[in-house]
């Protein structure tokens, strides 16, 4: 289990990186945190002839807030997110979700941009991007473009990023102060790839009626998906246990997962529903307790 031979470059600016990608074409791969890429290289499932290591582009490590949105540099580590008070304050879902990624040593190296562009359908960050209608910024030889999550994910491990482009920033809207959230996932072992997962956000009005609901589901499709039927079902309803269970049931019917060595399609379908209900329960609790705090 040793990788194939490759040429290695460690540019220090985005422009340099883009130029290298242009020069080396299809066979070049960007090395970010490497926590997914390197195992695949060790297995020789992935055999790049050239690696462009972007870890030396130090400008790409930042988290800041602007216009009610979090702007996160692509090589910001998961560990930086989980220890960031800014993230904790303005985006509880991201704060909760990032802690579910792998284990400490993985989060030390793993990067936000890498995780999103890797586009593993069971991963947490793509689901959070989906739940919050986030965007990524891509830079290529022809300039930059900003892509909504909806247009970003194509299928397993595939996004619309061109081989000559690099993702330099992730933009995630802050959660409104009236929002409640939860990230629920089911793994057989702590830190595993999820069998299925649900990122849920709800916003309620003064009468505890749901005004906005977001349900992003992992592990049930080639990309993270939004359970739109269940979302529209929730809007306008008061969030009783029966309603949350019905939303879960709707999610079960909405998803069309595959069977694999870890779980059958039916089981995954069921799990997506059960986890939805659980996530919603916790989101509602959070919603109510945040409201209480505000009223105090």
């Amino acid at each position: 289990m040793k990788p194939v031979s490759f040429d290695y470059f460690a540019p220090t600016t985005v422009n340099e990186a883009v130029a290298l990608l242009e020069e080396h074409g299809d066979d070049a791969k960007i090395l970010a945190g490497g926590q997914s890429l390197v195992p695949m290289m060790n297995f020789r499932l992935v055999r790049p002839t050239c690696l462009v290591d972007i870890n030396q582009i130090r400008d790409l490590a930042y988290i800041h807030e602007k216009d009610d949105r979090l702007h996160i540099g692509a090589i910001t580590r998961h560990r930086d997110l989980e220890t960031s008070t800014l993230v904790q304050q303005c985006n509880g879902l991201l704060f909760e979700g990032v802690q579910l990624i792998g284990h400490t040593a993985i989060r030390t190296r793993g990067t936000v941009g890498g995780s999103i562009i890797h586009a593993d359908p069971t991963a947490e960050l793509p689901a959070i991007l989906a739940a919050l209608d986030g965007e990524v910024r891509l830079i290529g030889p022809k300039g930059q473009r900003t892509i909504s999550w909806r247009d970003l994910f194509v299928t397993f491990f595939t996004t619309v990023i061109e081989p000559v482009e690099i993702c330099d920033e992730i933009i995630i809207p802050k959660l409104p102060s009236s929002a409640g959230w939860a990230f629920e996932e089911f793994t057989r072992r702590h830190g595993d790839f999820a069998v299925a997962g649900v990122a849920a956000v709800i916003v309620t009005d003064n009468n505890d009626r749901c005004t906005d609901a977001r349900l992003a589901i992992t592990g049930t499709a080639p990309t993270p998906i939004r359970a739109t039927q269940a979302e529209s079902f929730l809007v306008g309803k008061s969030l009783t246990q029966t309603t949350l269970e019905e939303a879960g049931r709707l999610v079960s019917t909405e998803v069309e997962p595959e069977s694999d060595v870890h779980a059958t399609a039916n089981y995954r379908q069921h799990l997506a529903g059960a986890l939805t209900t659980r996530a919603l329960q916790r989101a509602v609790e959070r919603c109510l307790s945040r409201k209480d705090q505000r009223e105090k």
Partner: protein
Amino acid sequence: MSKKAGEQIPGRTDYKWIGKSIPRHEDARLLTGRGTFVDDLNIPNVHHAAILRSPHAHARISKVDLRRALNLKGVIGGITGADVLERTRPFSVVATSPMQYYCMATDKVRFVGEPVAAIVARDRYIAEDALDLIDVEYETLPAIVDPEKAVESDAPILHEEVPNNIACHRLLSYGDVDAAFDQADFVLRERLVFPRYTSMPLETFAIISSYDHFRGGLTLWSNFMGPFIMHPITARALKIAENNLRFIVPPDIGGSFGIKTSIYPYLTLLGLLSMQVDVPVKWIEDRREHLLASSVQTDRVSYREVAVTKTGVVLGFRTKLYDNVGAYLRTPEPATTFRPIGNVVGPYQVKNLQIDADIVVTNKCPTGPNRAYGCAHLYFEQERLMDKVAEKLKLDPAEVRLRNFIQPDEFPYTTPTGGIYDSGDYPKAFQLALKTFGYEAMRKQQKTARADGRLFGIGISTGVDPSVSNMGYLTVALDPEVRQHPDYLPKSGAAETATIKIDPLGQVTVGLSSTPQGQGHETIVAQIVAEELELSPEDVTVIDECDTAKNIWSISSGTYSSRFASVGTSAVANAAKTLREKIFRIAAHLLKVDVEDVVFEDRRFYARETPTQSIKLSHVAGTAHWNPNGLPEGMEVGLNVTETFSFPLAHAPDQKDRVNSSNTYGFMVDLMAVDIDPDTGQVKILKYASVHDAGTIIHPKILEGQIYGGAMHGIAGALFEQQLYDDEGQCLTATLVDYECPFSTEAPKIDIAHIESPSPFTPLGSKGAGESSSETAPACIANAVADALSPLGVNVTELPLTPNRCWELLQSARGQTT
């Protein structure tokens, strides 16, 4: 006499060191990165091997061409099946239908991952590059993975020599099983499926091979763990004399749990490689190779029926077994089937039984010893049926077991299959387990939990824990007529050897060939020697690295079948006693008193009457080395003792297939409470109590560590891990993402307690416990989950109980198809 691990053994004031949890001698080097594992050895000019493996489960090899690979810069050589066929012999196979098993595929590949060619290069990276350049052509053949389907007449045949894919068949009968079934008030039947899993050591197979062309000698450094029968087997396969084959095992092995027994085909492969390239060759198996193609536990389908009286007494049982050993019957298989033969009735007074065993080959990785070897299967079957008896009679499952136990006054107890249980008090240990678990309180808690709609279950399992295999048990696989043939060499015995020496300045060194893999032998031996020689364990240096050319070893040496605490410690204790006798005789001679009057204290000898006139241990030892004339008349010079301990009751099987398959027999009880999440099907262990009787306890914390580790492997196999194949024989679990070993977050706490029934057959009374709860935990979990689901009318007949499977069981109860 019950006690918690870690406490001093009550009433054992006569022992100063035995029974104490002294710090481990092994730890300092392992904690500071100074251990010596095979991959840490620095052999000059070592080159690196990589192995090309079959992507097909079953195919004829029509071409293997190394030319392009050999042209790669940095590559110095390679071998294919043709070289193997020409230069090696097939391995010895214990079966009624022998097959040709070589270290590499020669004509056909029969499982995914089977070696097809090997390359040697300057480093591992280049060696792997070269694998990409090997041209192989296959003609694929239909594959078969299911043992019951493999024996059907239209199944693909793996080996021409093995009709119906049945490598071995035995019908074994003991007592009068037909009468037992005639007398029974009722008969219960189950079809049970036991899965494939591996206790997978964290250090993979590791070998360095060096061939001396001038002398014809082959040296193999490896993490080989015994049994040393693999030495002659390897020598024979490589067509070299045994005295030209040297196995060296460094002091540290990164776990094994039986798995590394099956390293010898690779020892042969690496031996051949180094003969070919004329430089030392290193091969470190990678994790994918390990999970695909090293070794794994046999999977089994069994049909068991039990004959029971209306009072819940089991009169007898019949079992039809399909044991799936994978593509080749690799020695010591079919030991899964026969290793527990002496203890196949477990702790129960069953007198009549029949075993109809088919040992089946299929297109899966070959199997071999794995912690709980054969016993996890056995107790899963036995204990599931004990619960079914309880269910049928509406008795408490604890009560049913109490009604069937062998009683304390019956020891030594001879089982109908020839096992001689040395000592025990099963009812007492069982009662202690109920108490440790808080059985009645837990049953009450269960009632409340059920009323709240929770899926709460309690499981019990018991087992007799066999230690120190009798080398002869495996020959039960052969028909008695074969064993009667005049050319047949009967097999029996179970021995271990230890060497103790005292150097000229009075320091003690012990040499072992036990090849431990984390069991703390250095510590335990220091304790025993310190005890016998009245020294401190700190004074005793133990060298536990093996070199077959230098060490004294027996054919059964090694660390497997839970043997060290029983046979290894016995060899050490006896050697220490002999040495003690000798130094006391020298001291008496020098002090000019009778031996009985010599006292040893603080490294000085004196006569009881005159404590002020003492001589130093170094003086006594020095006399033996430097002044032979000062020794008593006729005494041998020097202070070296090598003692081999051999069990006298390890006979070859008799004509009725009875055999004392192990030499000491402990006892264990596991009790668990579990909760199943109705949404996810996930089983959570709420409480786990485990009681053991391993005879005299030498080091309580090391024993506790063995129980914890064993239990964890049982839990892993029952809830998490499984080697899975698709119908075409593709292995689906060759990464640690897909082969799901539990982590600290999945591990339960265990309440451990002991009773001690010293073995009359070992000098210290100790028995082995290395496998311990790995044998009973799977049954315990199955019973607990079955109990949790029993209000829904769901039966549990198959492991592992993954969340997905439990959810499906729940769905079936809910009347929904999945």
